[in-house]
C-alpha cells in the first residue's frame, strides 16, 4: 500500500541529518507517522527515504517547569496530556493537544510532528505561537533555533532545510501568562479545526497575544495588542476587527469562508472573556 522507500532507524541525530542530506529533499522524518504515513498511502508524498527517529532516547524526553519547558520530537501527545505538571503548567496547550485526532492516534502523534506537518489547521500551532515557543533544529551544519513564528512557510511547508530534523520545542517561562485555546469542529468527536485560536494575556504587561489557525495558508500570529480599554465591548470589537483583517479564510468541503468568518469572532470573544473579562483564566 505504501510503495517502496528506504527505511533508516537512526542511532544518532547526526546520522539522521547525514541521511537526509544525502537524500537531498527526497527524505522525510518519521516520528508518530500519523500524518506522514497517511500522505504516503494517499500518494500525496513519495519520499525515497524515511528516517525513523523514535529509537533515540534523547528525543523521547520532556521537562516541564515554570522557567522553561522542552518537549522532545518523539514524545507522544498522550504522554504530555496525561502528565499532571504539564497540564497545569500549559493548560491551553494541553487542551489543544487533547483535541487532536483520537485517543489512539494521540498515542502515536507528537507535538513536533503536529507543527512539522505544517497544516494550516495544526491545533498546537496557535498556542505555540502565543507562547513564543522556539523550535530546536539539528542539521549537518550544527544546531540552530527557529522561533515558531518563523517556522511556517505555507500550506504543508516549513522553513526547515532538507537535512534538518526538529529535535525539540522549547517553551519560555510562563511569567504569569493567562492562556486559552478554542477550536470549532464539525462534530464533538475527532475532527480537524474549522477554525482554531489561542490567546495569551500578560496581566503584568497588559499585553494580549492572539493566534488563529485554519484561516490562512499558515497559522497567523497577530501583533501584540495593548489592553488598556475600560470598555470591554469596544475592546472586543476592536480586537475582532484586527483579527478579521489578519486572516483570509477560504471555502472548502469543511466549511465555507462565511462560516469561518462568522465563527472566528465568536472564538476570539470567548478567549477574551476567559482571559480578560472574567479574570479567571489560568
Amino acid at each position, binding site marked *: *500500500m505504501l510503495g517502496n522507500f528506504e527505511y533508516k532507524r537512526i542511532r544518532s541525530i547526526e546520522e539522521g541529518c547525514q541521511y537526509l542530506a544525502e537524500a537531498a529533499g527526497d527524505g522525510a522524518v518519521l516520528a508518530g507517522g500519523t500524518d506522514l504515513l497517511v500522505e504516503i498511502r494517499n500518494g500525496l508524498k513519495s519520499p525515497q527515504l524515511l528516517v525513523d527517529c523514535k529509537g533515540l532516547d534523547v528525543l523521547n524526553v520532556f521537562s516541564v517547569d515554570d522557567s522553561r519547558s522542552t518537549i522532545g520530537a518523539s514524545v507522544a501527545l498522550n504522554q504530555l496530556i496525561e502528565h499532571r505538571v504539564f497540564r497545569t503548567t500549559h493548560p491551553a496547550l494541553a487542551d489543544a493537544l487533547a483535541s487532536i485526532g483520537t485517543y489512539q492516534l494521540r498515542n502515536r502523534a507528537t507535538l513536533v510532528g503536529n507543527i512539522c506537518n505544517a497544516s494550516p489547521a495544526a491545533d498546537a500551532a496557535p498556542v505555540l505561537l502565543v507562547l513564543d515557543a522556539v523550535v530546536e533544529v539539528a542539521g549537518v551544519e550544527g544546531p540552530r533555533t527557529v522561533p515558531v513564528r518563523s517556522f511556517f512557510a505555507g500550506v504543508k511547508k516549513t522553513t526547515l532545510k532538507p537535512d534538518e530534523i526538529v529535535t525539540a520545542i522549547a517553551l519560555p517561562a510562563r511569567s504569569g501568562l493567562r492562556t486559552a485555546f478554542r477550536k470549532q469542529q*464539525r*462534530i464533538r*468527536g475527532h475532527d480537524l479545526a474549522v477554525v482554531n485560536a489561542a490567546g495569551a494575556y500578560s496581566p503584568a504587561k497588559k499585553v494580549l497575544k492572539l493566534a488563529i489557525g485554519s484561516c490562512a495558508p499558515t497559522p497567523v500570529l497577530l501583533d501584540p495588542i495593548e489592553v488598556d480599554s475600560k470598555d470591554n465591548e469596544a475592546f472586543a470589537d476592536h480586537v475582532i476587527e484586527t483579527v478579521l483583517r489578519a486572516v483570509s479564510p477560504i471555502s472548502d*468541503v*469543511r466549511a465555507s469562508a462565511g*462560516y469561518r468568518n*462568522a*465563527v472566528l469572532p465568536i472564538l476570539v470573544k470567548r478567549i477574551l472573556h476567559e482571559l480578560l473579562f472574567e479574570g479567571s483564566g489560568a
Partner: protein
Amino acid sequence: MTRELKYVGKPIARADAVDKVTGAAQYTHDLCLHGMLHTALVLSPHASARIVSIDIEKAEQVQGVRAVLTGNGLCYQLGLYLQDKCILARDIVRYHGEPVVAIAADTLDIANAACRLVEVQYEALPSLLDPRDAMEESAHLVHPDLHTYNYMKGVFFPKAHSNIAHHQKIRKGDFDRAFEKADIRLTASFYNPPVQHVPMETHAAVAQALPGNRIEIWTSSQSPYTVRHLLSVCFGLPHADVRVHVPYVGGGFGGKAGLGLEPLAYVLSRAAGGRPVKVVATREQEFNTLPSRQGLHSTIEIATSNDGKIVALKSTYIWDAGAYADYGVNIGRSAAYSGAGPYSIDNCWIDSYVVYTNKVFGTAFRGFGHLEVLWGIERAMDLMARKLGMDPVEFRKRNLLKEGDTTITGEAFTSGHGNPQQCLEAVAEAIEWRTPSAPPIEPHKVRGKGIAMLHKAPAMPTSTSCAVVIKLDEDGGADVLVSGVDYGQGTYTVLRQIAAEELRIPIEKVHITWECDTAFSPYDWQTVASRFAYMGGNAIIEAAADCLDQIRFVAAQALDVAPEDLECEHGTVYPKGHPDRGIPYSQLALGYTFENGNSIGGPIIGHGRFIAKGLTHLDPDTGQGLPAQFWTYGAHSVEVEVDTETGEIEILNIVSALDAGKVLNPKLCVGQVVGGVVQGLGSALWEGFVFDEKGRLLNPAFVDYKIPTAKDIPHRTQQILLENPQPGGPYGARGVAEHPMISIPSAIGNALYDALGIEFTTLPLNYERILTRIREKAESS
C-alpha cells in the same frame, strides 16, 4: 398452562462477543488462500464520459500481474430487481469512481503499480447530478438501453427511453376533490443527501474459479443465497456449482445486500487460470465506488379540516438513484407504500420516482427509504399542526392509525399491528412534553423539544422464505444451521434462545456457527428488512418441534408409552408426571440402543420453514394490495440545545419507544435501539455526500465525512419497548432492527423549530447550516 420462559425475553449475552473481542473471529478481510491474488481497480475520473480507448498493454507486462480485465469482454448484466449493472464499465462510465479496469496480481502493490500504467482515454459527456433535471424530457439518458433490461415484471415499472427506473403509484380515494374542499392546506419540500453505510469491514470478496465451471466464493455479505442465485443466473451455471461462504461479517446496514464485489472477483479468478482472487474495497472506494443510500427530494401536500383531521395527502418522491437502480427501485416502491406515515388518510396520492443520475449508485440502507420519506412527512406534520394552532402531539393522535382504519394501500389496521398511539404517548410523557425546556445557563444558548413518529414493514418479495435445520449432537446438544447472516445485529443469539426454549435444553448446548455455506446451510432469501428474527424464529420453532416429534417417536418405543403421553424438559424425554423415568436426549440423538444391543431411530435432524404469508403484488395503477408481513411502529422525542453563536447543536435527551410485540432479548434490543438512534443522529446532523459541479465526490473518507463517535452520543437516551403481540410472530415478536434510526432527523428538526423558530427542510442539520439560518432570521427580522 403457560410455561415460564427460561431464555426468550431474557438478557442473554451475545454469543459472538468473546470471539470478537479476542480477535478470534475471522472475517473475509482476514482470509488468505494459497496462491491468492490481490486486486486493484482503475476508477473513472469522470461522472459521465465515453470510453474512447483503454490501453492495458503496459500493465500486462508488469511482473506478477496475472489478470487485467476491462468491461469489453464482460457482457453480463446483473441485478436483483432490475438488471442494469455491468461488472466493469462498458463503453461509458456513469459515475466518478466507477471501476473501469481491474487487475489481479501477486501483491496489492504490484496490482496498484500496474493500474497506474493503464491509459484510458475518455470523452467527457454532460453529467446529470440532480434527479429533477434527469426527469426532464430533454435530459440525456444515463441508460439508453433501459428498455432492453430484464427486471421483476409486475412489481417494477421502468419507463423506456427515460431516466426513470421505477415509478410507484399509490392512489386511494379522491385526492384532488378532498384537497380542493379541505379547510386548510399546506405544501412543503424537503431534501436528504446520499449517505454511506460505513461498515467497519469494507466490502470484500474472495473467489475461485474451479474446474468444470464451478465457483467458490467467500464474501462479506448479507445474502449468501442471493449471491449464489444471481451468480448462477448471470453465468448460466447450475446453482449447486456456485458455493458461497459467508464468515463473520463486520457490519452491513443494507450495503451488503444483493451482489457486491463477488462477480468481479470471480471473473478475475477465471482470467487468472483459477487462482483465488481477493477484492477488498479501500475506505475511499467504500464511499465512491460501492453503493450508498439514495438522496431524496420530497414535496408533500397535506389538507385538513379545521379540527385537525387530515383529509388528503399527496407526496412526490424523487429518488436520486445514482448510476444504477437495481436495488434502488425497491426502495422507491417500499417507501411509497409507507409514504404517508402511520396515519389514517382516506385520500392519498403518491408518486415515487427512482431516477438515474451520474452519481455513485444507491442501495438498501437501514430504514430502506423510511428515514428519508419520514424526514419530510414528520416535519410536514409539525408544520401543519402549527398552521392549525394545534399541539403536534395532539395533531398526530388525531390522525394515527387505529383499529378499523385502513392504510394507504387498503390494508385493515388491527390490534395485531401494535399500538402507535402508545408509542407516541410514552415518548411524550418521558420527555415531559407539556413542560417547556428549562432555560440554559449560558445566554447564547436555547433549548427545544421535538417529537416524531415512525413506521416500517419489511420490504421483500411476496414469496420470501427461509429454512432452518437442527441436528442433535451425541451429547444432546443442538447444532442450528441457518443462512441468514448475523453481521452484528445479534440474531444468532436470539435464535439460540428460541432453540433452547423450544428444544427444552440449556442454552449452552445450542450452537450456531458464524459461517454460512450454501453447500450445507439451508435456504434463506437475504438478511435484510428486519425479518430474520421473525422468519428465522418461526422456522426454528418448527424445526425444534420436528426434533421433539422424532425424539418422542423413538422414546415412545423405548419406554413403551404413546408419543403423546411423553413430555420433554431439561434435555430429557419422560412419561408425563414421571421425570424419574426419562431418557436423556444424548441417548436418542443418534438412535436409541436397548440393553440387548438392538437399536432404533437414527440421527435426529429436524427442519423448519417459513414463507411470507398472504402478501400480494401492489396494483400497478393504484398501489393497492398487501405489501407488509408486519408493521412496526415507534416514536422518538428529543430535547436539544443550540449555541446560537456557532450553530453547534447538543442533544440533551432522546427517548425512543418501539412496539416490539415481544422483546426476545432486552439487552440486545436496547443495544440495537441505541445503535440505531446514534446512526440516525449521523443522518440528522453530519452525514451527506458533497459533490462538486462535475460530480466528483469531495468527502470520500472520514476526514471530511463525519460520523458520530463515542463523544457524540447524547447525554441521555431512554428506550421504551412495548409488547403488543404480533400474531404469527415468534412469541409475538416483530422486527425492530432498522426502526430506531428512522425519524431521528425528523424529531431533531422539529426540536430545532421549538428552539429557534426556524423550519429546516434540508439535511444534514450541521452547525454551519444551523448558524446560517439563525443569521438569516436575525437579518430579516
